């Protein structure tokens, strides 16, 4: 039997380069208010568990979990913070519901990156302090290392990566949340400044502010809550070794593991033909190719060619990041997974507006925690 946890409400705020008018907490209140309205729940009465996905250094406040209850309606209610991507938070909410601790659980994650004046200092600080921290460069050098190894091992053509950025930035032009949408060609992407070779600036997603809230419910409870339920049928998450030097830099092994668990749970046997859409990690251009192969949506080394031939376009055989993804919309730190989930949920509800993929019924969503991590999560959704 596949997993059957209902997504009964979603809400978001922000999706802008800066949100100087609102505090993090006010941004969260806005997203939470919308999600509760969407679900038809009162957080003071109907919710038994609240989960936030945040990281203290991004917040600039230690033990940041303590500052989460008020704006979510969670004062004197069970709340915990998980310092990981939002999809890991959803997995925790699923467990709370399956165990009977909660009928209704809420998951929030956000980015208030505009409050951080030197984000590179924080990413660099995530490198092993003794073994790796000596490299005094923009931390995207790790992405450059992965990309070079991926291109070499899969014999993928360099400009296929650029095509990912072209596709996603173009998709984002149709998305009201798409901060970094643009109509570019491959040359523009390839000729933009090199961040850390072979990766260029236009192949790197840019961070934005935003808060996203999900309301989850048991199947029994979901019957009473609205008529636009989307189901989580499988979920998985995984972390590889932190040693950059020792893990397989050519592939996203964490995504492969997460997907195989989520697929098994959901009963997905042939992922390449099973889904109507996919929202996968595209923090950097090559990451989308790596992720598609890890998720078995493309054979090893074939993702680039398929992107080039239009298989993953919005009107292609399997639309991938039809929303614009992180390259087109923007990167939301630990809320990136919830952003991808949000886009997939709107698609499966038929509420994606100009982005709508006809007859979308099944979706796969995948996220990565960013440099220098090797942690990711996958969710299988159906309506």
């Amino acid at each position, binding site marked *: 039997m596949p997993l059957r946890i209902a997504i009964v409400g979603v809400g978001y705020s922000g999706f802008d380069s800066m*949100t*100087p*008018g*609102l*505090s*993090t*907490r*006010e941004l969260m*209140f806005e997203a939470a208010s919308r999600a*509760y309205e969407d679900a038809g729940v*009162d*957080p*003071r009465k109907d919710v038994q568990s609240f989960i936030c996905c945040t990281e203290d*250094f991004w917040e*600039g406040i230690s033990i940041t979990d303590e500052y989460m*209850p*008020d*704006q979510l*309606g969670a*004062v004197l209610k069970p709340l915990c913070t998980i310092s990981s991507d939002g999809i890991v938070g959803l997995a925790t909410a699923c467990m709370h519901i399956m165990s009977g601790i909660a009928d209704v659980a809420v998951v929030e994650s956000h980015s*208030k990156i*505009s*409050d*951080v*004046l*030197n984000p590179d*200092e*924080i990413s660099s*600080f995530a490198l092993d*302090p*003794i073994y790796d*921290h000596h490299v005094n460069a923009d931390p995207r050098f790790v992405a450059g290392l992965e990309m070079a190894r991926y291109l070499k091992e899969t014999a993928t053509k360099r400009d296929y990566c650029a095509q990912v950025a072209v596709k996603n930035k173009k998709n984002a032009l149709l998305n009201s949340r798409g901060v970094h949408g643009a109509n570019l060609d491959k040359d523009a992407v390839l000729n933009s400044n090199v961040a850390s070779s072979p990766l260029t600036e236009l192949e790197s997603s840019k961070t934005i502010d935003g808060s996203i809230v999900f309301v989850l419910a048991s199947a029994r409870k979901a019957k009473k809550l609205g008529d636009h339920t989307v189901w989580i049928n499988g979920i998985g998450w995984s972390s590889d070794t932190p040693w950059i030097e020792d893990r397989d830099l050519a592939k996203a092994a964490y995504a492969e593991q997460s997907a195989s668990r989520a697929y098994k749970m959901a009963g997905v046997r042939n992922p390449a033909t099973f889904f109507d859409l996919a929202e996968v990690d595209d923090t950097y251009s090559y990451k989308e190719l790596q992720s598609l192969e890890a998720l078995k949506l493309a054979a090893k080394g074939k993702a680039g060619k398929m992107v080039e031939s239009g298989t993953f376009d919005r009107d292609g055989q399997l639309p991938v990041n039809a929303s614009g993804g992180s390259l087109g919309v923007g990167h939301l730190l630990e809320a990136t997974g919830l952003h991808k989930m949000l886009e997939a949920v709107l698609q499966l509800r038929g509420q994606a507006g100009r982005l709508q993929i006809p007859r979308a019924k099944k979706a796969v969503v995948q996220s990565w925690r960013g440099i220098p991590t090797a942690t990711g999560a996958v969710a299988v959704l159906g309506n």
Partner: protein
Amino acid sequence: MSQKITSYPGHEITPEDVKEGKYLDVVYKFEPKYSWAAGVAISRFLAELKEGRIIARKCMNCERILVPPRMYCEQCFRPTDEWVQIKDTGTVNTYSISHVGTDARRLKTPILVAVVDLDGATPGMGILHNLGEVEPSKIKVGMKVKAVWKSSSERQGAITDIRYFKPIGEE
């Protein structure tokens, strides 16, 4: 160590050992920088402090007057409704006399920390601040106090625009 225990097993590392490099470590000074957006409620609160006033928000549902002000009521989970000017006088809810600084050293002059319930706010709501112009031994829970402000030219829209709270006689 105690009367019964005069030494612990193992080898004690002395400051000299560290100086001589017998034990290796890596030193790094982490320097993240932030510029927190104060938001709608706290921005107004700070702007009012600059004018020498304290402002709160009222929730019409539970009728509480909230300070520090917030744009949402955490009990009712709804937006708050209006700004309310409250007084710069109040009552010491609790206090503590701190003898240890942030660097763990003993302080020559102790720091007088108090939670002050502000007049005009819902009872039990107020401000965490320092006390001044008072002998530590004379501080009492329930004591009436009043804000001592910096001069208007010194105020910059910060919680420290109030220097401290000092005792006032019962009215």
